[in-house]
């Protein structure tokens, strides 16, 4: 038995985000709340965003899920802060392409998120990684639907 191939998936930066999640919690002064779940596995995310003047000022998440889904949520909330809603939505598309193993625009600095590229080789886990991003996309894309 071996663990070498697991390292493709569980990069140390992912485990760091899993064990020490950034932006964990609920934003008290949020104006966008999104709850989303992955019906096939039971993972859930509760994402709160504060969006003013089309800029994502702050983002926090709570949830229940595997290392990949929670690490991805942690990274997503980190990168999305300070971005305007169009940039945020574009990042969600880029992330989706990353999961599909597509070549992505080199000019975009993904930071820690690049560590998730290995998920593309584990098709069963792609949905874990995309949950938080889908929640964010829904939040910034369809404010009227998503706002409480």
């Amino acid at each position: 038995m071996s663990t070498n191939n697991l390292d493709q998936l569980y990069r140390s930066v992912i485990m760091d985000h899993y064990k020490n999640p950034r932006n964990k919690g609920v934003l008290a002064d949020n104006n966008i709340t999104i709850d989303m779940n992955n019906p096939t596995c039971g993972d859930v995310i509760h994402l709160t965003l504060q969006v003013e003047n089309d800029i994502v000022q702050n983002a926090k998440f709570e949830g229940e899920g595997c290392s990949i889904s929670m690490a991805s949520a942690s990274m997503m909330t980190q990168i999305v802060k300070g971005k305007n809603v169009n940039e945020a939505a574009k990042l969600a598309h880029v992330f989706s392409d990353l999961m599909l193993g597509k070549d992505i625009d080199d000019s975009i600095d993904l930071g820690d998120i690049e560590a998730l590229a290995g998920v593309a080789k584990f098709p069963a886990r792609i949905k874990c990684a995309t949950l938080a991003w889908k929640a964010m996309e829904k939040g910034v894309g369809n404010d009227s639907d998503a706002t409480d």
Partner: protein
Amino acid sequence: MLSKEIRNHFPILDQKINGHPLVYLDSAATSQKPRQVIEALSNYYNLDNSNVHRGVHTLGNRATEGYEGAREKVRKFINAKSTEEVIFLRGTTTALNTVAQSYGRANVGEGDEIIITYMEHHSNIIPWQQLAKEKGAVLKYVDLEEDGTLSLDKVREVITERTKIVSIMYVSNVLGTMNPIKEITEIAHAHGAVMVVDGAQAAPHLKIDVQQLDCDFFAFSGHKMCGPTGIGVLYGKKALLNNMEPVEFGGEMIDFVGLYESTWKELPWKFEGGTPIIAGAVGLGAAIDFLEEIGLDHIERHEHELAGYAMERMSEIDGLTIYGPLDPEKRAGLVTFNLDGVHPHDVATVLDMNGIAVRAGHHCAQPLMKWLDVSSTARASFYIYNTEADVDRLVDGLRIAKEYFNDVN
């Protein structure tokens, strides 16, 4: 047959996954298929394929014989009185929905009660939820004991004179619990209610005797018992089925069609709309032959032993929680568990990287997950082809998962 010998009948097991010999521990989701079943399907399509009950030609006769012959095999397998009581449908879900849509709609009214339990599979919850909503009936749950078993006292507390339907799983797909169906049926009948049994996890593993259980309906799927997907069985007592309306209209269930009125065939074809699942039934018949050759007693004993061995070996691992009764005698051949600090998805991925297939998630039993206070679990489920060596591989894999997630960072 010994499990090693049995194993040779399953070609799929002879392969490597991610560089390791496959250990398949997800039979509660779907079992693997023996060569005999695969050949029966291929022979049917190669030699006999035709529609049933229509053709006057030889192939039509062969197909009809294959299909109806399989019905007789199922009748014997569950000890139904007559083949009229054996209806071929797509699977357990369709069978339970058929009972809800047909018997339920006709017999459940406002304020009536339908009884299920917290351990049910979604397929044995939602058809009743929908029926209760439509009819203004009350859906009531029997609570579970601490160890995930059902107590007859609690069943008695919930069933009343307003109860019309009691629908309970025979064996839990998460807890492994085997429920006292015969006793619950007696209680249901004493209150004038019908007893529906979700037998999806029972039929592959235990000798089923519907007359001895005295249940009114019994539903199960072919694919969990070495048969193909897309074929399942609804057993119902003839007197009840005779008074029920079909839920699917057209094709094979038709007797005579007029412009504004039509009539249905007699049982069991009344409930088998469209062109039936002919190859599926033939495959299920072959699966039954195969299981009976091994012997259901042998299968049940083998799984008890394997589950007992698995629980013993798994309890060596610190921080591993097993759900359901810890007494192997009270459970069927599956072990649902969680490993402290490692999400079940991550457990399943680590195991998969080592060639071991388990299930991770909510197992289509979200109310039970809530009752257990977890969002998801991992599950190793065994069947006739599994051996103690498979359990050892699982335990090794779990140790790797534990170490990996503790060390990494």
